[in-house]
């Protein structure tokens, strides 16, 4: 909840929360492995965009993926789904 009520009278009957970008802070800092896209291999099938559980991949105008590293937690689902192995998971530097 972005606005905290001052009293019970101001509270809704059940908690309501609107989606906001990054309400938990920049979760990309949790990442151990970093996905990188090899655009020369990418067939623009958009599977990585569909499967990303965090919505951290956006679909660019030519349908190629763009990863938002501020929020990508590095789960590797995109790399696993990519049918042409165009996404590689690389260990983040210390």
């Amino acid at each position: 909840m972005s606005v905290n009520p001052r009293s019970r009278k101001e509270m809704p009957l059940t908690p309501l929360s609107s989606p906001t970008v990054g309400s938990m802070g920049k979760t990309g800092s949790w990442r151990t492995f970093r996905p990188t896209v090899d655009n020369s291999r990418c067939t623009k099938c958009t599977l990585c965009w569909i499967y990303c559980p965090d919505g951290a991949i956006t679909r660019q105008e030519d349908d190629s993926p763009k990863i938002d590293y501020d929020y990508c937690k590095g789960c590797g689902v995109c790399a696993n789904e990519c049918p042409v192995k165009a996404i590689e998971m690389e260990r983040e530097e210390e």
Partner: protein
Amino acid sequence: MAQITIDTANHIAGYAAKAARVKVVAAYPITPQTTVVEKIADFVERGSMDAEYIRVESEHSAMVACIGAAAAGVRTFTATSAHGLALMHEALHWASGSRLPIVMAVVNRAMGAPWSIWPDLSDSLSQRDTGWIQFYCADNQEVFDTIIQAYKLCENERIFLPAMVCLEGFILSHTYAPVKISDQEKIDDFLPPYKSGWILDVNRPYSHASLVSPEWYMEFRYMIQEAMENAKGLICEIDKEYGKRFGFEYGGLVEKYRCEDADLILLTMGTMASDAKIAVDRLRKEGLKVGSARVRVFRPFPVAELRELSEQAQMFATIDRHISFGLEGFLATEAKASFSSQKDPPLVAGFVAGLGGRDVTSETIEKIAKRSLKWMRSGRVEKETEWVDLRE
């Protein structure tokens, strides 16, 4: 013109869902409930009811489907019994906590093991603490009327809670009786379309009933309690208003019969009250001052009404078609609790009867009354909980 239909209480529950213009019905079969959703399937298939009929894979899914539909702002209905209701248990809390006015017919059936398909109230009474309003009906007409009334109640902004309309399996569910079904336009006038307090909308996205910290949780619980308290008055108002419009009134939270000068009051729920009335008439002929009070609404519990009755009555005999193992029937517990803070509380004797569909006749109830009167005269309840007609 109002129409008199001779049908089973289950089919009548279907007629009520249709008359309430329910928009989403989630259905999963279980004895003795099945013919409720069969009747609705028939209406939807013939095109006489404009509703989305969702055939789900379990009762848990049925409740969750209703939650989703109600959150999207439409009137929803489902029906279940016994183990189906038990499977819904977790979702029942989500419905009340999300403040969604879902109405569900619960066709009471005893819980297994041992396996039983016959009625007692152990299924719905086990859901006592889920935040659902609970009505218990005594005849087919009341099933129809209560479903309509329940929507009116639950969709009120001072309530926004779900309700179970309970009816005993077979005794009502599969028994034919005449029921007056009023004109649709009169029902529409009494029950206008549902206006939700908030609607799930992809254009204005939000999640509801989301995680709250200890800082906020208690207030949300308190608001449910407040709504339950509000329901006490509103149930009575709606019952009166319904009576004026349609000719059937049920005494609000408690239906009283010959209680005005009664020394002993037989406290029951559901169909047992009808037999209690017959017993009362016979006992009255013998000059015994006995009355019958039927708890029609178990949650919220009618504490004030029972206290008012105790100003005249010296004793209450509760007859529970239910047992909370290790203590007694819930009606006995709640009645005692209602009186406990009074200066001179009446005597309360608890009777457990009719479990798993065993017949409770007016003769059985007469026997209970006579034993209670004996205890009343001696001023001492000799047996805290008596199991009626139990084999030696």
